[in-house]
């Protein structure tokens, strides 16, 4: 009975703590933080980066922690945008995208973050949706 209680407790703890995807980041050139009013462009695989006035700020990688549930494409892009703002980037560019499959129910993304010295709203970009 004690063993059963321990197992239930363990499952509960795992369930509560590990629903978020694993995020690894590497910021090579952090910039001053952006405010909520400053636009951030979300560029999917098919969207091209502007050629000039652009600095790479860092990289993000979203992986499945094994118990992740909050890992839809829109949710990950929202989290990437928040990370971008914190580090002064106004372009989130998806460089590698793995869709949910037999091995994982999550999107897995590799993202580059850039600071672009011009208006990002004119760039062709992904329109975020609510799941």
């Amino acid at each position, binding site marked *: 009975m004690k063993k059963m209680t321990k197992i*239930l407790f363990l*499952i509960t703890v795992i*369930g509560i703590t590990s*629903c978020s995807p694993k995020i690894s980041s590497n910021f090579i050139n952090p910039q001053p933080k952006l405010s*909520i009013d400053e636009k951030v462009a979300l560029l999917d695989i098919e969207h091209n980066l502007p050629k000039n006035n652009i600095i790479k700020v860092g990289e993000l990688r979203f992986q499945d922690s094994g*118990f992740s549930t*909050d890992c839809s494409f*829109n949710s990950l892009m929202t989290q990437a945008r928040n990370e971008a703002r914190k580090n002064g980037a106004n372009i989130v560019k998806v460089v590698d995208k793995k869709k949910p499959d037999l091995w994982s129910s999550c999107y897995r993304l590799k993202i580059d973050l850039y600071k672009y010295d011009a208006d990002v709203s004119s760039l062709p970009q992904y329109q975020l949706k*609510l799941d």
Partner: protein
Amino acid sequence: MKTIFKSILFLSVLLLSSCATIISGSRQNVEITSEPSSAKVYINEIEIGQTPVQKNLKRNQEYQLTLKLDGYKTYETKLEKKFNAWYIGNVLIGGIIGLVIDPITGAMHKLKPEEIDGNLKRGTTYETKSGNIFIKISMEIDKNSEKVGQLEKSK
């Protein structure tokens, strides 16, 4: 008598094997009103309408809530995911299936406005009724903005 008791216990375990998912569902209805009304509401920077407005949101995500109205300060808060007490039903009754299902569906969470040091953001009140959350926001006048006139309806 023992058989009846066993049957009830078995049915309870079966039915309550994913308590929170059955009772609360994987989404939560969020109704947002403001004083004054007609403020533009954005969730994760996506415009969803003007107050009063309601939206059915997934419980396993956190959301950035923003309200904008001319002449008033932009209001911002987070809708955070908190622990849904119905999840304990699985632990109490021993529904191992529920312990796994509820986190997957997100039903083990409920959405609540962000609290800092135990206090809600100024001007925010909320109540929860039958699983739905009703959030009321009093917009703060922006002293830097000045009313210069008002358009009148032509007769």
